[in-house]
């Protein structure tokens, strides 16, 4: 199942949160060899985790972490603008209608539908928050994965080679991608809505009525 969790709510899901930071260490440090900082407990965190980002996490039936990603608004500090401006022609990408997605991570042995489910979560948020685009910084080899889920990015720029290649890309938040992502993830629209509402609250009939 998908969970949408701000950093200041992660303590409610200790097992899931711990799995995310551990699996990020495995993916970005051990597997890709990126220069990320991993603490003594084997957790990978960076300065953007301290900005109360919004995480989308895939929780497996046994409660463990299956995959996750991190979102931040581009009106505040972002990894792309702080470190990868050369991948966007020097343009500081800033808009209330554009959020940044980073640290897309899959747990070792993650099921095939997890990538699609996570990207579905991004689109659901994009549509609900009236976003036009998502920008992302990602391992360049992820482009194939994103293309396979049916919502591939426009690549803005790439630096490095092989497993060190890092790309910046752009996803349009169009309703038209939703059906394809739902089908690739094997999730019905109703279930996806339910997961969204469980994290962000159900629209009550009338606030006055509960008063």
């Amino acid at each position: 199942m998908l969970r949408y969790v701000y950093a200041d709510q992660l303590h409610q899901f200790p097992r899931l949160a711990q799995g995310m930071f551990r699996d990020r260490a495995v993916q970005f440090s051990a597997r890709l060899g990126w220069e990320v900082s991993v603490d003594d407990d084997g957790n990978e965190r960076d300065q953007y985790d301290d900005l109360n980002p919004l995480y989308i996490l895939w929780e497996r039936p046994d409660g463990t972490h299956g995959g996750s990603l991190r979102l931040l608004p581009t009106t505040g500090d972002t990894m792309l603008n702080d470190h990868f401006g050369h991948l966007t022609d020097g343009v500081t990408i800033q808009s209330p209608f554009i959020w940044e997605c980073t640290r897309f991570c899959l747990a070792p042995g993650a099921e095939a539908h997890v990538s699609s489910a996570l990207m579905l979560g991004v689109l659901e948020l994009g549509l609900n928050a009236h976003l036009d685009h998502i920008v992302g910084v990602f391992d360049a080899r992820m482009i194939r994965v994103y293309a396979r889920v049916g919502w591939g990015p426009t690549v803005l720029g790439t630096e490095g080679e092989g497993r060190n290649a890092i790309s910046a890309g752009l996803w349009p938040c169009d309703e038209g991608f939703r059906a394809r992502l739902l089908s690739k993830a094997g999730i019905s629209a109703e279930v996806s809505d339910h997961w969204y509402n469980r994290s962000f609250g159900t629209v009550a009939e009338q606030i006055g009525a509960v008063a």
Partner: protein
Amino acid sequence: MLESFLDRLQKVKTLGDLDGAILSLSDELNAEHMVYHSVGSGGKEYAVTTYHPIWVDQYLGNDYARIDPVVQACLRRFHPVDWKRLDWSGKATREFLHEAVDAGVGSQGFSIPIRGPSGQFALFSVSSRDSDEHWARYTQDYTRSLILASHYVNQKALEIENGTDQAEIASLSPRETDALTMLALGLSRAQAADSLSISEHTLRVYIESARFKLSAMNTTHAVARAMNQGLLRV
């Protein structure tokens, strides 16, 4: 929508001017009530509201921010929230809501949390006594304008706080200037993207970033503002 407000906002120099601009914004966006509340990176707070001063005193005196679900759920976050999605079920919360409704705040509301640079954040809310049906239509029609206006108010508040006049001239990167120049020359988006050797989506994002830096309502407005500020060589 918003054009006269944005022109007025551009002339704002002091927090006092900003108060007036926000009050005119609530008229322009047909909002019964509007609140803008900023918390600077140093913890400095600033608020403007159309609420009755008696309610504001009552709210501050009782430190209602502790139990106000809007503040609790939105401050430091960044997705727009209809108040209907919040949890109003606790006893203290229900009493707070009763007082708010009695004070004319209304029981319909929509909040836009804003994330600024260097840890600054703000909260912008509209509220009303509308029926569910009217409110649903209002939020459908106005949310994008509210998101835009609230961020421009925040930019202006930051500009005043930082005491910089330079911020008035937005700094655009050469690529953003190129994109706006092409449009000013009358090229279509497709032609502009083609001549800059970028995809149309990339062009849209560059233009959107430029629009935000110029506090413009739309692309045409962004081109006009960039021209007026002498940023384009056309």
